[in-house]
């Protein structure tokens, strides 16, 4: 808004036919334009309009107009709700901030959740700018109106506002607020109960501890045994915040009965939620309860009859083990968790197995070398042979944790067949995923192992029949060269790549060019010998290719190679070829050749100079 400040101020100065009013007039008129983009644009510049109108007219004219403009598209309303959160100065500062309540109140009742949430967010923001008196006179009545509104949209919005006004009001009003929250927790519509359940933790945080124990716990218990599982599952989240607020000695009586009940709920969605929030719950209830209660609960979740629950729990295995109290962590894992993990390795559901595979390697750092070799390694090996490619991929992508503990050699015997199988998987997305792990594997396995076992695979991908694979393989080459250096590239990669230049399939010949582009990029100027002596001749020769696509890619490659060539090579070898291509019969070839010629000049001033002489 600052840059728009100019014309607005000058408007104040001259009142007779000031052209600086024009842009503001347009903005105001476009608030009602038929084109939603223009309306959106105007709403986003609402601060400019308000500045031009001044605080008085903003309060008396603009805001009343906006209060009744809730018929608009969601994106316009969303922008409006957001703007109003930053409007305090534009209505005259904190003294007048309550003028913003009516438009935000009507936005807080629309049916679209994103708009309502944004209106609530803005209301929370401006609540801080209310003086304690204004808060009781203006803001708190608004919260009450919303809380007792006819429609559930307004009541759901109210749930998010209690916590911001509670700390700053008198004790009588506080009592009223608690009462309102209680009422909403037992609302007829599940929508409202869900909104209350999701704000329970937040509200508990601002309440005095005594009220947490007396009020919140009973609400929490009631919501956690709601008839609708869509409400019960939200109580699990509240459980985390409430548990952190209570002193350790109260947890057992006030929270644990409910948590135990949730972990064994009849509805899988509730149990899923417990599994999903398990690490947070574990931190909130502390080590003692974890040992006595959560360990058996976690075991049950890992053995749950619903695969969704097992998968969510499997995802938490590493975090849960990490956060166990250190004194008997190893013992708990070995006797209680590992047996369940072993079963999950051969689960019937592939999502469960793949969730486990994404974290299981992390256990090796916790259990140390000997346990890893004895207990985990067989599991890793089994998962590397799993029928589902995603499981194998997840193991391979986390090899680094194991590498640190036992070294990768332990695995390499099984690793290789697994990699080869993935590399040749019938689904190209699986092939793509394994390619992405190649640089990582190469780094961990070392250059010798790589050359011996994996290099062939990397080269085979270059002639895959799916373009995305060839492209990824090219990119993979670049990363390998970065890892193993230019010399390695010269000896192992370049000869094979250049060999493809004579391939009968033009797609493979193009791959040669793409590879050259990336190798030049990695080797750069210090290793320009590779470029000038080995690669350039091949590229130049390919300018005679009968396929136009190859020829214009030659032009593109030459443009990339240019910067590392000396002026002599440029002048005597590259320039004639590009000129020839520039008069090609094919339009695209011509275009890219001309691009290259002019690009060549721009890429480096020294080369430009040389070309001009």
């Amino acid at each position: 808004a600052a840059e728009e400040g100019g014309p607005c101020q000058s408007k104040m100065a001259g009142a007779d036919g000031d052209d600086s009013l024009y842009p503001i007039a347009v903005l105001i008129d476009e608030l009602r334009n038929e084109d939603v983009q223009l309306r959106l644009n105007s709403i986003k510049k609402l601060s400019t309009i308000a500045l031009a109108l001044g605080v008085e007219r903003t309060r008396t004219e603009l805001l009343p107009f906006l209060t009744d403009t809730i018929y608009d598209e969601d994106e316009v309303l969303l922008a409006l709700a957001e703007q109003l959160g930053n409007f305090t100065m534009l209505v005259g500062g904190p003294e007048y901030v309550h003028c913003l309540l009516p438009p935000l109140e009507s936005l807080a009742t629309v049916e679209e959740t994103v708009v309502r949430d944004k209106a609530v967010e803005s209301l929370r923001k401006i609540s801080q700018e209310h003086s304690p008196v204004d808060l009781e006179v203006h803001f708190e009545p608004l919260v009450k109106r919303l809380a007792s509104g006819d429609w559930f949209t307004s009541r759901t919005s109210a749930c998010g506002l209690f916590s911001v006004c509670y700390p700053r009001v008198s004790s009588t009003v506080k009592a009223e607020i608690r009462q309102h929250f209680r009422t909403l927790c037992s609302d007829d519509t599940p929508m409202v109960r869900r909104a209350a359940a999701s704000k329970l933790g937040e509200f508990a945080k601002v309440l005095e501890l005594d009220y947490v124990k007396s009020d919140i716990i009973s609400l929490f218990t009631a919501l956690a045994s709601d008839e609708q599982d869509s409400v019960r599952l939200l109580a699990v989240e509240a459980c985390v915040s409430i548990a952190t607020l209570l002193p350790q000695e109260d947890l057992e009586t006030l929270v644990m009965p409910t948590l135990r009940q949730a972990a064994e709920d009849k509805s899988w969605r509730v149990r899923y939620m417990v599994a999903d929030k398990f690490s947070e719950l574990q931190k909130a209830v502390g080590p003692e309860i974890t040992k006595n209660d959560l360990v058996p609960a976690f075991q049950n979740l890992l053995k749950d009859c619903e695969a969704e629950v097992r998968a969510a729990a499997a995802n938490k295995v590493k975090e849960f083990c990490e956060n166990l109290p250190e004194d008997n962590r190893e013992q708990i894992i070995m006797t209680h968790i590992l047996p369940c993990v072993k079963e999950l390795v051969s689960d019937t559901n592939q999502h469960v197995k793949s969730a486990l595979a994404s974290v299981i390697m992390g256990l090796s750092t916790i259990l140390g070398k000997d346990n890893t070799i004895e207990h985990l390694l067989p599991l890793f090996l089994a998962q590397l042979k799993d029928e589902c490619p995603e499981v194998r991929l997840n193991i391979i992508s986390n090899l680094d944790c194991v590498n640190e503990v036992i070294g990768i050699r332990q695995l390499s015997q099984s690793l290789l067949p697994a990699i080869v199988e993935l590399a040749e998987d019938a689904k190209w997305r699986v092939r793509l995923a394994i390619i992405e792990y190649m640089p990582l594997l190469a780094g961990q396995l070392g250059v010798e192992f790589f050359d011996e076992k994996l290099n062939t695979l990397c080269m085979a991908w270059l002639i895959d029949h799916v373009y995305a694979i060839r492209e990824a393989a090219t990119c993979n080459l670049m990363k390998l060269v970065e890892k193993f250096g230019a010399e390695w590239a010269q000896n192992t990669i370049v000869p094979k790549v250049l060999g493809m230049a004579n391939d009968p399939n033009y797609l493979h010949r193009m791959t040669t060019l793409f590879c050259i582009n990336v190798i030049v990029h990695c080797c750069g100027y210090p290793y320009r010998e590779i470029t000038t002596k080995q690669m350039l001749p091949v590229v130049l020769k390919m300018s005679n290719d009968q396929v136009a696509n190859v020829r214009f890619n030659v032009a593109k490659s030459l443009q990339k190679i240019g910067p590392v060539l000396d002026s002599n090579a440029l002048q005597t070898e590259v320039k004639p070829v590009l000129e020839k291509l520039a008069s090609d019969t094919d339009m695209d070839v011509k275009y890219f050749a001309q691009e290259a010629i002019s690009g060549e000049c721009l890429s480096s001033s020294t080369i430009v100079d040389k070309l001009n002489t």
Partner: protein
Amino acid sequence: MAGVAGGNDFQWCFSQVKGAIDEDVAEADIISTVEFNYSGELLATGDKGGRVVIFQHEQESKNRPHLRGEYNVYSTFQSHEPEFDYLKSLEIEEKINKIRWLPQQNAAHFLLSTNDKTIKLWKISERDKRAEGYNLKDEDGRLRDPFRITSLRVPVLMPMDLMVEASPRRIFANAHTYHINSISVNSDHETYLSADDLRINLWHLEITDRSFNIVDIKPANMEELTEVITAAECHPHQCNVFVYSSSKGTIRLCDMRAAALCDRHSKFFEEPEDPSSRSFFSEIISSISDVKFSHSGRYMMTRDYLSVKVWDLNMENRPVETYQVHEYLRSKLCSLYENDCIFDKFECCWNEWHSQVLYLFAIMTGSYNNFFRMFDRNTRRDITLEASRESSKPRATLKPRKVSTGGKRKKDEISVDSLDFNKKILHTAWHPKDNVIAVAATNNLYIFQDKIN
């Protein structure tokens, strides 16, 4: 106790009829679904032309105090257009298969409408204010000289005639390979299910790009297909329970708490077949065309070709009540098969109406010859009424109709052979709180109400 169907102290009288009177009916005008909203204040119909018409209950008028208010058109909009699926070379009809209202959440009303493939969420809202005053134009629309603007004008809101707008809020597409037969809003107010011949999907009302497939009865080999899903509905209070009916006359109740996929049912309702009445048509006529939970959720009702059955959710092996809708057609099944009428999908609806003195449990469903049937669950009495132009005088009492079943036709009886099978009442709806019913007869919508003596 007084009965809704047949008691002398309780009669139905004509209130209104909507739609054209012409004899030749345009296909697009045929009503394909009727549904009251939760309060009964609005009544929606969908037709084969893809249109949705919403009627609003007008407050009692002072001029005609005997009428308890009429339903007048509130909003009309084109919900679905005919489409063509180029990949499968299939035409997708615009016909509205089902309409379901959402519980009211703010001043606007929302409904879901569906054709064979695509479900749409519509918002119906009112507007009675209009902004006035532009900076760059004057009142009659002439542009002002931009250099002569001396002050800024903020638009002012002025009252205007009430305008009702229907706007599409969400489109839930591309999730059904087969034809959608049911949609049902869940009591959690945030999800709904949609069922086609072989699958049931669960949607979140705010998310259009994905849905969860909760039931899939498609066999790996389509030649092994023995039954299809014919209807599905969510329990009115338990957000985890839903039922679906099949073409074999069975109903499965599933509990979404048990597992993410509901391939395994938790209850299976089936009445053992009477071997003596077994015939070539047995399977066709046992196919369930509609299933509805009672308002309390304790019972459900199913409609098959010849009967309506009421099931107690706690008893799976047989229905607690069976009502014959038009048993006299049993001898006509052969010709009904030949003219395809045997495949007609009749719907059924509940009424649980009570006042201080009356408590009524009644069921309504349609038949042929523009007849519709009501069954009183308390007295077990039933009645046949006719939706016809002839008795469409205001306050005209509907005379009970009788079809002669024996050899000799009594006075006032109609013989089975003279029934008009082209005039069928498939869709009916009962006001949720009042004794007002809406009956769709081809292109006409009849509204009847009880006659208070």
